[in-house]
């Protein structure tokens, strides 16, 4: 071996969160200097509330992207889950807890079907979830008959309630989202299951030859992601206070954006779920900050486009320098 100096202890994977985090902090600094209302507790609480639904979707999306897949249906599945829970609770009079369970089960069921199609028939995840996007969208509108479901029982909106931290109101939903991120950071980083997910995404044949039951693992990942979308549905319902058949239509791209901004590779096997949290926050901070600065919508779109590229470019260039 050639001369090799002691290297710093390195992370499990080679895409640290440092880059995206720097981009996030820069953005915060910029908006903090430019608008008075940005650096306040309530505003941060707001940003978290605003990103919690897409953020939670992006957890499931991260799982799937780590296996070198992609999920275009997550938003549609969430919308369907939301309609199922609210309609069952309100129109069919099911006990709220059962209704929520049914909604979660439906979302997990979509994940299961996706997983089976990907593993059993070797269909590309892109195609499977593209098809499912249409299916879930259509089912949402057929089942809801285009009606928004209102007058929800308290259990379904509980996560929208707040508690006080210092001067700031925090919703239970924000807390749940953060906890979910920590849970999945733990599962991916500190359990055998997580290692297997990375190995599978890295090279499925190597994983299989290493004695990992890759098909079963993959089906599990899709199902779990579906379940997480179910939680996102509950978060959405409790945030908006209604069951909305129009929900989630841009959330597939938004969640993928969060994942990629967070430094996870679309080719699988590399990335961290906490990076995804940072990625989701970047998007939320931009939207909130630009709005507070009074930038017109269409210019917000323009700036967001440029900034998405810039954020990843800064990350990329800084990484190149340390190499």
């Amino acid at each position: 071996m050639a001369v090799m100096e002691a290297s710093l202890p390195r992370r499990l994977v080679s895409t640290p969160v440092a880059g995206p985090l720097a981009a996030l902090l820069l953005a915060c600094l910029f908006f903090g200097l430019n608008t008075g209302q940005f650096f306040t507790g309530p505003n941060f609480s707001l940003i978290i509330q605003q990103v919690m639904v897409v953020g939670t979707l992006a957890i499931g999306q991260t799982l799937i992207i780590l296996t070198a897949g992609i999920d275009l249906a997550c938003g549609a599945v969430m919308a369907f889950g939301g309609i199922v829970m609210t309609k069952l609770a309100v129109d069919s009079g099911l006990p709220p807890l059962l209704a929520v369970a049914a909604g979660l089960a439906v979302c997990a069921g979509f994940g299961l079907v996706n997983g089976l199609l990907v593993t059993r028939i070797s269909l590309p995840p892109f195609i499977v979830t593209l098809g499912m996007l249409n299916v879930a969208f259509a089912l949402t509108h057929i089942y809801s008959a285009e009606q928004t479901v209102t007058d929800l029982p308290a259990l379904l909106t509980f996560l929208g309630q707040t508690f006080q931290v210092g001067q700031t109101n925090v919703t239970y939903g924000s807390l749940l989202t953060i906890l979910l991120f920590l849970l999945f950071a733990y599962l991916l980083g500190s359990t055998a299951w997580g290692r297997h997910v990375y190995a599978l995404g890295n090279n499925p044949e190597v994983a299989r030859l290493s004695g990992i039951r890759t098909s079963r693992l993959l089906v599990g990942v899709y199902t779990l992601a579906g379940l997480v979308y179910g939680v996102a549905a509950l978060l959405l319902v409790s945030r908006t206070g209604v069951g909305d058949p129009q929900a989630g239509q841009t959330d597939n791209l938004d969640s993928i954006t969060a994942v990629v901004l967070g430094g996870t590779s679309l080719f699988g096997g590399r990335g961290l779920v906490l990076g995804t949290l940072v990625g989701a926050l970047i998007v939320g901070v931009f939207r909130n900050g630009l709005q507070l600065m009074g930038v017109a919508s269409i210019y917000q779109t323009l700036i967001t486009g440029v900034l998405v590229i810039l954020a990843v470019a800064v990350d990329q260039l800084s990484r190149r320098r340390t190499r």
Partner: protein
Amino acid sequence: MTTPVLQARGLVKRYGHVTALDGADFDLMPGEVLAVIGDNGAGKTSLIKALTGALQPDAGEIRLDGEAVRLRDPLDARRHGIETVYQDLAIAASLDIATNMFLGRELRKPGVLGKVFRMLDKRRMREESARHMAELKIGLRSLTQPVESLSGGQRQGVAVARAVAWATRVVVMDEPTAALGVKESGQVLDLIRQVRDRGTPVVLISHNMPHVFEIADRVHVQRLGRRVAELSPRDHSMAEVVAIMTGALQVSEGKAVVADQGAAKAIGLS
């Protein structure tokens, strides 16, 4: 007669128009080092993939200690104590060495943390990996370095160390020294001897005849998807074995006879 530890009869595997295995037999005796040799494309890798659950043969039977088994996937083979170093496909490039070492058999922390929270014991895995790597005398600065930053030889070393560390019944190695330096190759051969000496039989695929003659107790010659000979390196010269492998000589009733005059001449055996 002793029962073979691992045995196969009439294995067939077709890929479209290509027949990789064409009724191959295989016998591994307890405590021996069996070399499998053959030309490129002779079906050596296919044979051992079938024996280790990595591919499902179209026909044929596999027996472990005389009992017919079905190995549905590599995990099945592992559970039967068979460990394999696959050609090209040994390790996950973006994961670190310790993770690769324990992939599929991770250690959990003792107590509640491990049982309930299923937390990995990263420190212990790192330490044990270091121990295994040291045994093989593979020098590495850091076990948390992703495998993709290692040289080809270092990578192969990781794969070999893993198989040796875990095998309880059979170790199978598909060209383990192909990418290794002289020193590292020597260490792998030493290791194979150690494994045999502790009673575990080893299957070694190699194109390196000196290595084969140095270490093998018996040689399985694979040709055109079949076993064409089983012989002892003590009874045959290297040139003879190579001739059998390339089809210039044929073995009939334990004796080599010239089969292909042209081929025999080409390798200087007339």
